[in-house]
C-alpha cells in the first residue's frame, strides 16, 4: 500500500540523480624515517585541530605468547596492561591521576600481531602526556601487587563473559579451526594461564619484545615531522637491545569440519560462528579474497545479510568477516538467530557459499561491490588516526609500499571470473567449523543433519 502525498512541484522523481564526477582520492603521503637504534617513525601531520596522538606499536602480540611456555596465553596482553600500572618513577595511581588531570588518554593493549601503547591529548598537553608514555614504556615496574589486581580483574571478566553468547561461540570456533596453533588461544588468556602468570613472565616478554628494532612509532595530528623525530630521539635514542630473531611461522592448515555446541543458560537465540581457516594478511591474494568476502557478507547489501535478514527475517544482523593476521587467518559468517531456525540458517549459509563457488557473480553485482569499496575508501581516510592505522599496517604486515595507493585500482581491475576462481579456491563449505552457543539440547537435535555435534564443556578456554 502506498502513502503518497501530493507533490506541489513537477519534478520527475522516478529517475535517480546522476552523481557528479568523483574527486580523486589519494592515500595521503606521510613522513617516514628510521632512527639510529632502529625505531621506525611515521608522522601523519594534520593541523586542523589542536590534537596530537603518539602510537607505539611493538611488532609482537599474543601470537608470541607460546614462545614463553605452553600455558602463557594472555601474556602479551597482560604485559602491556601492566605497563601503565607503575614505573620506577610513578605509582599506578600517580600515572592515572596525572593522565586524567591533563584530560588526556593513555591506553595500552595487545592483539595477535602487536602490543600497543598510545597517548592522545590537546597539543598544549602533549609534552606532558608523551613524557608519561615514555616512562611507562621505558621503566615499567611490573609490581607483584599490581599484577595480582590485574589478574583478579581478568578472572572476573572471564566469569562475566560466560553469559555472552557471541563470545562463547567465537571462543569455541577459534579453538575448533586453529586447534593448537597460537591463533586458537584467546588474546586475553584463560583462567588457568592468567592465574599462573608471574612478574618474571612479564619481564621476560618485555625484554624479548619491547625493543627498538621491533618498534613503530606513529605521530598523528598537530605536530611537524621535525618536532616528532626530535622528541623521539630525545626520549628513546639511548634505548638499546635487539628483539629475539623470529622465524617465519607457517599458517595453520585447513581445518577439519566440526559442529561445536556451547551452553548458554536461558538462551532465546543461537549465536553462530561458521567458518574455516584462511589467508594471512600479506598474502598476494588478499585483495581478491577480501572483495569476494565483501560480496558474500562484507557489507549491508551483501548476499548473507540480504538472505538471512531481508528475505527470511531470521536475524537482526548477519555478516561474514575475513580476519587475517601475520601468521594465519580465518573467514567466518557471524549471526544470532532464533533457536528453532538454527538449522535453516546454516542451510542458507551453505547455499550462499556454494553459490559463490559455483557461479561467477554477474557484472552488475561486481560493479556494485567495486563502487562500494572505491567510494568507501575516502570515508576510511577521514581522520588522521584512521590514516595512521593504515600507515602502521604497511609496516606491521610488511605490505608493499604502494599497497594503499594501488588498492582501488586493483579492486577495479578484478573480473567476475577472477572472483569465481577466488571463491572456488578459498571458500570451503565442506570444511566448516559450525560453532553455536545457546540451548544445547534443542540445537543438538536440529543440527544433526550436518554431522555429529560435539558439546564443549564450560571450563574449556
Amino acid at each position: 500500500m502506498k502513502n503518497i502525498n501530493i507533490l506541489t512541484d513537477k519534478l520527475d522523481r522516478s529517475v535517480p540523480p546522476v552523481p557528479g564526477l568523483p574527486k580523486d582520492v589519494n592515500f595521503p603521503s606521510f613522513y617516514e624515517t628510521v632512527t639510529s637504534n632502529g625505531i621506525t617513525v611515521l608522522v601523519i601531520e594534520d593541523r586542523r585541530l589542536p590534537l596530537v596522538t603518539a602510537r607505539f606499536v611493538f611488532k609482537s602480540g599474543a601470537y608470541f605468547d607460546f614462545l614463553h611456555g605452553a600455558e602463557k596465553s594472555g601474556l602479551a596482553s597482560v604485559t602491556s596492561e601492566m605497563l601503565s600500572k607503575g614505573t620506577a618513577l610513578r605509582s599506578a595511581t600517580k600515572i592515572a591521576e596525572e593522565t586524567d588531570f591533563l584530560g588526556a588518554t593513555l591506553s595500552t593493549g595487545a592483539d595477535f600481531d602487536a602490543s600497543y601503547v598510545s597517548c592522545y591529548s590537546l597539543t598544549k598537553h602533549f609534552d606532558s602526556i608523551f613524557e608519561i608514555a615514555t616512562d611507562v614504556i621505558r621503566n615499567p615496574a611490573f609490581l607483584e601487587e599490581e599484577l595480582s589486581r590485574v589478574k583478579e580483574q581478568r578472572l572476573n571478566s572471564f566469569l562475566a563473559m560466560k553469559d555472552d553468547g557471541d563470545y562463547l561461540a567465537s571462543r569455541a570456533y577459534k579453538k575448533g579451526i586453529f586447534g593448537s596453533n597460537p591463533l586458537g588461544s584467546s588474546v586475553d588468556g584463560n583462567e588457568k594461564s592468567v592465574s599462573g602468570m608471574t612478574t618474571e613472565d612479564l619481564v621476560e616478554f618485555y625484554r624479548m619484545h619491547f625493543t627498538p628494532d621491533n618498534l613503530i612509532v606513529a605521530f598523528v595530528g598537530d605536530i611537524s615531522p621535525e618536532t616528532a623525530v626530535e622528541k623521539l630521539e630525545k626520549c628513546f635514542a639511548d634505548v638499546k637491545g635487539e628483539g629475539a630473531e623470529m622465524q617465519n611461522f607457517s599458517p595453520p592448515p585447513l581445518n577439519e569440519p566440526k559442529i561445536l555446541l556451547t551452553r548458554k543458560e536461558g538462551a532465546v537465540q543461537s549465536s553462530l560462528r561458521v567458518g574455516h581457516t584462511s589467508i594471512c594478511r600479506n598474502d598476494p591474494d588478499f585483495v581478491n579474497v577480501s572483495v569476494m568476502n565483501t560480496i558474500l557478507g562484507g557489507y549491508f547489501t551483501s548476499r548473507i545479510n540480504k538472505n538471512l535478514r531481508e528475505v527470511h527475517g531470521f536475524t537482526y544482523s548477519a555478516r561474514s568477516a575475513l580476519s587475517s593476521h601475520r601468521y594465519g587467518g580465518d573467514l567466518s559468517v557471524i549471526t544470532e538467530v532464533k533457536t528453532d531456525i538454527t538449522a535453516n540458517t546454516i542451510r542458507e549459509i551453505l547455499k550462499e557459499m556454494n553459490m559463490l563457488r559455483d557461479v561467477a557473480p554477474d557484472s552488475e553485482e561486481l560493479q556494485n561491490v567495486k563502487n562500494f569499496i572505491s567510494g568507501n575508501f575516502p570515508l576510511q581516510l577521514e581522520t588522521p588516526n584512521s590514516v595512521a592505522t593504515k600507515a602502521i599496517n604497511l609496516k606491521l604486515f610488511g605490505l608493499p609500499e604502494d599497497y594503499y595507493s594501488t588498492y582501488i585500482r586493483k579492486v577495479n581491475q578484478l573480473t567476475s571470473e577472477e572472483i569465481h576462481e577466488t571463491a572456488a579456491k578459498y571458500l570451503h563449505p565442506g570444511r566448516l567449523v559450525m560453532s553455536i552457543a545457546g540451548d544445547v539440547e534443542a540445537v543438538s537435535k536440529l543440527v544433526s543433519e550436518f554431522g555429529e555435534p560435539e558439546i564443549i564443556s564450560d571450563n574449556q578456554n
Partner: protein
Amino acid sequence: MTKTVTDIKIGFEEFTLDNGLRCIMHRDNNNPIVSVTVGYNVGSKDEKRGSFGIAHLFEHMMFQGSANVAKNEHFGYVMKCGGSCNAFTMQDATVYFDTLPSNNLETALWLESDRMNSLDITHENLENQKSVVLEEKKQVFDNAPYGNLFNDIFGNLFAGSGYEHSVIGTEEDIRSFTVEGALDFHNKFYSPCNAILVVSGDIDCAESEAMIRKYFTGLRTKCDIPRMENIITPLAESKSIDRKDNIQLPAINVCYQIPKAGTREAYALEYFSEILGNSESSRLHRKFVYEKQMVKAIRLSNFTLRDAGALVIRAYVNPGHDVENVRKEIMLEVDRFMDEGCTEEEFERVRNGLEFGATAKHLKVQNIAVETVFNMLYFNDAMRINEETERYLEVERAEVTETAQRYLGNSNNLIVNYTPKNGSN
C-alpha cells in the same frame, strides 16, 4: 582563572522552506565526504498504549521502499557509491543518516525526500521487518546479560510519562502493528515541518541549497502533529526492585531523576558523575575497583532527555563480596560528596577532560551533523554546538555540590538489584 575555551568555531548556514523544513548546512572541504542527516521530531514517547515499539519498527520500514525507491534500494544506492547509512530511534527523536562521497550528495537528498513524502508498505515487508525487530529485541535485550535493566530504570523512574516504556517496545504490540497503522504514523509525524535536515561536509553552500530546494520544496506539509503531554512526576518514595538474570556477577544500580538536557543543572551533574566515576582516578573507581577490589567496574551515566534526565550509578560486584555491604559503602561515598563537595584538583581534572572531549568529537562530519540535529530539535539553535564547552566551563565548583545535594542528596531514588539466577554468588 583564565578560561581555556577552544576557539575553533563550527560555521553553519540556515534556511527554512515554505513547508516548514528547517535546513542547516556546514561546509568542510577537507575530505571529499558529505553527511546528510534527517531528524524527525518523533520518538517512543509519542507512542500510544497498545503501540509500544512502533516508532522504532517504523524506522525499519523507512528502508522498505517509497514511491520511487524499491525495497532495500535505499541501502543499495548508498552502498553502490561506497557510503554508509543507518538510523536510530530514541524516546524523543528518530534520526536517519547517510554519509557518502561528496559527488553523491544529490542521490542522498533524492532518497531522503522520497521517503519523507511517500512510503510503499506491503504486508510482506512489514511482517519481515517485524521478525527482524523481534530478533533485534532478543539479541540486544532479552538474550544479553543485564539486557532489560533500562526497562526497569525508565519504567519506574518515569512512570506515567512517555518515557515509561522502552523504545524497542513489547512483542505483543510489535506483532499487532498493521500496514494501515504504519501509513497513519507516517502521515502524522513524517512531515517537513516536523523534521530537520542537516548537510555537513564537502559542499558548496549555494549549490547545496539549490539541490535541497529542488527535492524538498515540493513536499507538502501537514502541521497538526498530535502531541501527548509528557508529564514527569518526581518519585513519591524510594523504591527497590530485585531481578534474577542469567548473569555471573550481581549488579547494583542506583538511579535518580535529574533535570533535562541543556539545563545548567544537567551540566553541573556531569561534573558530579566524572568526579565519582568513569576514570581511573575517579573516587569510586579508585576506592572500589582499585583499592578494595569489591567491584569489577563502576559507571555513572547521565541520560539527559528532552523533558527529564536520569543519573544511574552501576556497579558489578566481584565474587566474595556482600552486595548489600558494597551498596552501603558506595552510598557512603555519595553522601560524603554531598557533605564535602570536591577539591579544586578534581574539578580542574574534569574541566580538562571535557575540553579535550569537546575538541576531539568534531573530527567527523557525521558527528557534527547528528549533534546539530539534536541542537535543532531540542533547542532550535544550531550554533549551540560552539557553546558546549563554554557551558561546561561556566559551572562553578560549589554549584556542583549544591546541584548534587538538590537532585540526589535530598531526593528519592530507585535501586535495581540484579542477582544471578543460579545463586552461585
